[in-house]
């Protein structure tokens, strides 16, 4: 994963789009144009206490004069969203990375189905814009409790027009993955929202090949019953050996030993800390790496090894 520049952006506007979702527009105090991005990309937001949170960009990729994000206040969350709501008012400074995309549209696909749950709408706003502009056939299923709980609904309606299907559970219309037609061989399905929605769509479409299913949830779901064991790491280039105790992550141990490894979420979802390995049985605990990469790549923030592993560092 590549390093990204971090900018101090100014909050140009902050407005509540629902009772608990704030929509922010961020601009650079000096540069008229921000680094470019593609639909589905996210930025890292750095909090003063060192926390880093990812938020999808929900503006227009063709408008590089500012970045837009929408943040839902999660009272039971890890504190990032509360900090955003309490501190990022107009004129405040936000430390924001250049964008990265782990959830991009597959180019050339002719039929796209987007399924959003609540705040999971954010990456689809830019995707829908791009698809609409390209004239590519798509449909967006937007699930929320009520219209007033659906962030940026007005914008979404304007962008999607007749290609929007709203599912408001408190109004008796609950989304059912069975409504998705995947008969066409070029249909790609994208889901973003709570884990249960992503899982429901995945399980509801057993015939859809993995390569045509794209799910994003920005909360890692590490197994609470996982019992971490200590293991040994060998650095391939120097032969140096390090011990990773049961209560420390591989990433922490590497950093302590002087390795400069970038990281961001430290939850196994963003991929910033990805590195190569050989000779070892790795216990992959991330949500990002596809099976094809797990043979020789790992995310040291969450993944561990049985007994020992050799890292390509």
């Amino acid at each position, binding site marked *: 994963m590549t*390093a*990204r*520049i*971090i900018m*101090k952006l100014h909050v140009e506007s902050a407005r509540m789009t629902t009772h608990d979702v704030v929509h922010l527009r961020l601009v650079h105090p000096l540069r008229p144009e921000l*680094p470019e991005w593609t639909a589905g990309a996210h930025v890292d937001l750095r909090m003063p206490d060192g926390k880093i949170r990812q938020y999808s960009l929900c503006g227009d990729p063709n408008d590089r004069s500012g970045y837009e994000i929408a943040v839902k206040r999660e009272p039971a969350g890890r504190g990032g969203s509360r900090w955003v709501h309490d501190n990022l008012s107009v004129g405040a400074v936000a430390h924001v*990375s250049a964008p990265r995309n782990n959830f991009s549209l597959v180019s050339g696909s002719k039929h796209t189905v987007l399924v959003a749950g609540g705040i999971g709408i954010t990456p689809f706003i830019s995707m829908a814009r791009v698809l609409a502009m390209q004239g590519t056939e798509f449909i967006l299923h937007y699930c929320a409790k009520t219209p007033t709980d659906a962030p940026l609904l007005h914008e979404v309606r304007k962008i999607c027009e007749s290609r929007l299907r709203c599912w408001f559970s408190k109004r008796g219309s609950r989304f059912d993955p069975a409504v998705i037609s995947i008969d066409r061989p070029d249909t790609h399905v994208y889901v973003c929202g709570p884990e249960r929605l992503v899982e429901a769509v995945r399980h509801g479409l057993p015939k859809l090949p993995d390569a045509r299913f794209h799910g994003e949830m920005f909360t890692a779901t590490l197994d609470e019953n996982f019992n971490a064991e200590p293991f040994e790491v060998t650095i391939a280039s120097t032969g140096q050996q390090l011990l990773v105790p049961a209560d420390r992550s591989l990433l922490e141990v590497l950093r302590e030993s*002087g390795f*400069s490894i970038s990281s961001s979420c430290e939850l196994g979802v963003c991929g910033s800390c990805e590195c190569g390995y050989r000779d070892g049985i790795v216990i992959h605990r991330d949500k990002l790496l596809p099976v094809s990469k797990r043979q020789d790549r790992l995310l040291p923030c969450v993944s561990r090894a049985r007994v020992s592993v050799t890292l390509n560092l």
Partner: protein
Amino acid sequence: MVEAFDHPAGSIAAAKVGGAIGWQGTLLHIHIAPSASYEMEELAEAECVAGRGIVGDRYFNGSGTYSPKPDVREVTLIEQEALDALARNDPPLQEGPITLAPGDHRRNLTVIGVPLNHLVGRRFRVGEVILRGGRLNFPCRYLEELLGKSVFLPLYNRSGLNCGIERGGIIRPGDTIEMLGS
């Protein structure tokens, strides 16, 4: 930090006769970044602290990408002439012209009229501040990643100079840069 003239490069060069003479250059820009990966910020004046760095910079704060590795990097310099060469695609080894704004290259001081490659092992002054050339800077892949531009080969051998600060003080764009005796 490694003292500039204790560095393997600086110590060998300091013991050898050489270094360009008869030149006088100018400080064009001062940039610092508060922490690793942060965008560089331009300063109208900066405080240099002997043996430490530029106040507010990531290598002064110990929060730079390479801070865990001891080296000479109290202050880094690059020639405007090298940036001009990149912009005119000279030599034409890269895909095309590369524009690196003074805030993009991540060196602290952008200078003009200063033969940096000749100043390893030499003492020179920037305004009231005295610097010691410790080693040539070399481009890193990290910079390429941050910029999203292939600058490694184009910057090779003209990536600037890493210096130690012998005498601290305040520097400002426009300050004269010139050679001092050993």
